[in-house]
């Protein structure tokens, strides 16, 4: 199900930053030989890049929404890792982006519920 969403500036910036982290993670995972995970992270970053490129208003598919949620889960791991290493500022920064990605997911879910009515 494709839903048209209007993203705030904060949400678009969060998507851009998440895409950058996931792209870097994908490259690293490929280098250490975990191809499946590298492909998955690469796919999530591609979805986020497309959202950023489409500007304020973007069309998000059901699979694209799952990609955003998966990206948020991977960011949770990055956040926890930064936190464990006492790199608190980076951890807080990532946490804010997780919340913005979740906002997009919740809005997609709300709109999808209305669309089937």
């Amino acid at each position: 199900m494709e839903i048209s969403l209007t993203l705030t500036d904060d949400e678009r910036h969060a998507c851009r930053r998440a895409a950058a982290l996931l792209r870097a993670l994908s490259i690293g995972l490929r280098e250490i030989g975990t191809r499946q995970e590298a492909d998955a992270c690469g796919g999530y970053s591609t979805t986020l890049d497309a959202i950023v490129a489409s500007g304020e208003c973007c069309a998000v598919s059901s699979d694209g929404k799952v990609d955003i949620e998966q990206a948020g889960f991977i960011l949770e791991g990055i956040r926890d890792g930064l936190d464990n290493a006492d790199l608190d500022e980076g951890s807080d920064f990532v946490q804010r982006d997780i919340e913005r990605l979740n906002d997009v997911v919740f809005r997609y879910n709300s709109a999808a519920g209305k669309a089937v009515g």
Partner: protein
Amino acid sequence: MCGPPRKNPGAAATAALASRLLLNHPDAMILALGDNAYNRGRVDEYRDHYTPTWGQPDLLGRTWCCPGNHDYRTAAAAAYFGYFGEPRAGTPQRSYYSLPLPEAGWHLISLNSEIEQDAHSPQLRWLREDLASRRFGPILAIWHRPRWGSGAHRDSKKPRWFLNEMYAARAELVLNGHAHHYERFAPQRPDQIPDPQGTRQFIVGTGGRKLAGRRKDTPNSEYARFDHFGLLKLTLRPDSYRWEFINVDDRVLDTGEQPVNSREK
């Protein structure tokens, strides 16, 4: 909670525990806290994984629920709503509901943490009206994503809107899933200030999905287990509630009792 056994090793055992508990309490309700069929909440996942365990007639006929994020991996959580039906789950358009529990003298509310829940959202407007018009004072609310948590996913800011309303209504209990462990918090305000007349939050993500460990220490967390599949048994009375966290070997790992919050007559 249910899915391929490799990643959901506890589902059959917790369903069996629920069946054993129902033998002594045939009128008990089962509250399923979301993410019932992994990984995408599809019709075939409900059929192949939920139905053989938690979907058996003795359990399914007593189950009320709230949706989780994995249920929404199928567009509009269509399989979830189709499987449980409107009286037990709501609808894709109105995915939150409440019901009075006359025997216990409590009010049960099921909310949806996977859609918009901000101050001006239809869900929060409904919640305010529902709380204002409820028949019984003591409140038990369920939604999927916890506000506070020491395990995987840690805290989620969004449900603060729910918690603000709960605290204003002096709600006693909130049950959440999402994180795969068990955790009990002291009654507290939405800003984590301890308050004996506040709302007590439980995380009961121990229904079957593989368990996850502690990520951090959270204020007011009174008890947490990251190593047992199990169920939370609640006994609700008009003037008090009792909780028991029971693992799949029938061992009670956490128990306690508390009076309901005081309310103006």
